[in-house]
């Protein structure tokens, strides 16, 4: 009897506590497999996480065009918030509640491919005539262990936006080297205006913003603890100590940078081409330009953008048809313009006058040749976490740049070993 009582007590305690696990349940009932159109069309569900209005419209536009172009496949686009998308992809792998096609941020591609989410499309790729047209960065982010798991949607990278009025008022030119940047930033810092702003939150966005500085020092993505790597962290930390960069950067997103820029609180920001339209809308009278991120030893930027991933075991062939449709010149140019992205294909990007002849987009195109993919490595999220943590520790004086970089190196080495 005593045993039963104890058991019951334990059960009650378990129930009281257990709701920590329940929150992870999936509420998504939409399974692509279950959906087949009455008219024998193949229904193809596509997931994306773009929350901008223009981008969502571009996605739907793309699906509409494809649906009208043929009568075998019906594409349906679904928006899933980014954090939810990542979660659903991993839970979906167990519960098999997945779409047919998904868009993922390029550094996440390798992780999901390694987990078996995406189909190996090497055969399809090898017989595809457009295969050699991709820029090396974007296409290598689609590969893992020599196999293709995806195809780039579009690319972007970081460059330095600068406020022309502030520059002429201070009598300075856009900087091209680290040393120039340091003095320029100092000169431009006045009142509540900071010379430079970057975004350094403790997540992938922070790592994305840090990598150009790391790579420019001559270090590779896995060498933050090397003397060159330490110097890059030291350089950024010094900018904060000089007062040329705000301490608040550790909480700013790249969208916050745009707000700092248009309200004249930052004379220079590092941001991507997707922000151009927002700047034009927020501050139509602002005079600004874009140059490459100043270099330490080499010019560097890192690659942003999404990849299409075909979900394994679903309508793989139909998904491939849709992807091929998006790769046509006019179509790609149109949606990339809506996204503020650069087409990931040489043949398309370099024949588009709106990119090559535009004083701003051409800088991003130029920067794309230096843009390194993040990884690709299945455990990139852990590597990334080590770097963004180091940046925060160093910027908040929790550790010296050297210590923070070395600690991050230890974590990265454990992941890579």
């Amino acid at each position, binding site marked *: 009897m005593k045993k039963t009582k104890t058991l019951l007590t334990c059960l009650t305690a378990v129930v009281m506590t257990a709701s920590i696990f329940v929150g992870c349940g999936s509420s998504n009932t939409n399974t692509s497999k279950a959906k087949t159109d009455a008219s024998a069309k193949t229904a193809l569900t596509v997931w994306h996480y773009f929350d901008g209005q223009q981008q969502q419209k571009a996605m739907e536009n793309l699906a509409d065009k494809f649906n009208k172009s043929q009568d075998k496949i019906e594409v349906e686009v679904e928006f899933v918030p980014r954090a939810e998308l990542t979660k659903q992809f991993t839970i979906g792998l167990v519960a098999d509640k997945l779409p047919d096609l998904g868009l993922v941020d390029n550094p996440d591609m390798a992780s999901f491919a390694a987990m078996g989410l995406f189909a190996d499309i090497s055969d399809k790729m090898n017989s595809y005539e457009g295969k050699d047209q991709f820029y090396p960065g974007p296409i290598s982010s689609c590969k893992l262990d020599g196999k293709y798991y995806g195809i780039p949607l579009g690319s972007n990278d970081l460059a330095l936006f600068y406020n022309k009025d502030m520059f002429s008022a201070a009598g300075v030119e856009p900087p091209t080297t680290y040393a120039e940047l340091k003095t320029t930033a100092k000169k431009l810092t006045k009142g509540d205006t900071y010379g430079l702003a970057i975004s350094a939150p403790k997540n992938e966005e922070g790592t994305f913003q840090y990598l150009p500085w790391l790579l420019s020092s001559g270090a590779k993505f896995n060498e933050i603890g090397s003397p060159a790597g330490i110097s890059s962290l030291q350089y950024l930390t010094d900018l904060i100590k000089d007062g040329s960069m705000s301490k608040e950067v550790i909480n700013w997103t790249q969208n916050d940078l745009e707000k700092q820029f248009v309200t004249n609180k930052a004379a220079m920001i590092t941001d991507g081409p997707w922000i151009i339209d927002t700047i034009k809308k927020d501050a139509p009278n602002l005079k600004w330009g874009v140059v490459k991120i100043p270099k330490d030893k080499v010019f560097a930027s890192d690659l942003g953008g999404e990849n299409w991933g075909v979900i394994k075991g679903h309508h793989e062939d139909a998904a491939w048809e849709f992807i091929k449709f998006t790769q046509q010149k006019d179509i790609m140019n149109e949606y990339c313009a809506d996204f503020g992205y650069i087409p990931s294909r040489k043949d398309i990007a370099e024949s588009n006058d709106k990119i090559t002849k535009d004083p701003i987009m051409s800088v991003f195109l130029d920067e794309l040749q230096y843009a390194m993919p993040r990884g690709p490595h299945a*455990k990139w999220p*852990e590597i990334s976490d080590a770097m963004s943590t180091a940046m925060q520790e160093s910027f908040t004086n929790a550790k010296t740049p050297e210590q923070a970089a070395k600690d991050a190196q230890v974590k990265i080495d454990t992941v890579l070993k």
Partner: protein
Amino acid sequence: MEIILKNKYSREFISEERKGYLFVLPALIFMLAFVGYPIIYNFILSFRDVNVTTFSNPIKPFVGLKNYIDVFQDPTMMISIKNTLVFTLGSISIQFVIGLGLALLFNLKFKLSEPIRGLMVVSYLIPMTVTALLFKFMYSTSGGIINEVLMQCHLISEPIGWIIDSKTSMFSVILTNSWVGIPFNMLLLTTGLSNISDTLYEAGKVDGANVFQRFFKITLPSLRPAILSVLVLGFIYTFKVFDLVFVMTNGGPVNSTELMSSFAYKLSFTQFSFSKGATVANVLFAILFCVSLGYLKLIKEDEVIG
């Protein structure tokens, strides 16, 4: 004693008891399926090595205690345990003290006490994510109402980075969580207060007890069961808070608000180290399990006394 035991285990008694279990059975099966399964799954997961590279393997190797050792060697784990304790104890004490104060206030039954008490509960009804976003805006350094008001009153000269400074972020998150928890404390304590018979106070007055004596000798002891429930339930709810921190700070800046729950989420769904995420969740579970057991034991003692 012998006789009582015999009676207790007589045939009729047992069949009565069996009937009782039969009624509980459906609920028990439901619980085992929907509560028991995730717990067991999580438990097994924490002894295997499941991460990005082994996720798609058909056989996931058992690694014994390796995940537990790894997790406890991770400095973030220690920080998150410490943060979770600070967060929980901080939140509970603030919300308990204010909740008790409000319960006593509304127990005075003045005009409008009922509707105002009803309004107070609103903060408990608002979804946590909404509260989190609200406070995030209020704490903002550019245009956040808290900084604006403090600056207008000339109490501070420049905005305080409530949730972006690692020194104040924990305090700000605790304050937000307390705002949510106060009505819960107030409601439970009010119920407790209404159960105290007025004759006790009258007797106290007759014996010449002053306000403080009446509070400490009559109110508090009579409230014991209610206080116990509030504190333990509060502990359990607060200890596993996730959404608030996830939305407000996402554990930052520099891990200063990283709780065990958010750390477990991060390990599982950002870094895809599912086993380590499960391990952290299990540690969290173990701690809460002990607290729950203690609570049930205390309740039992109370019932015996009662």
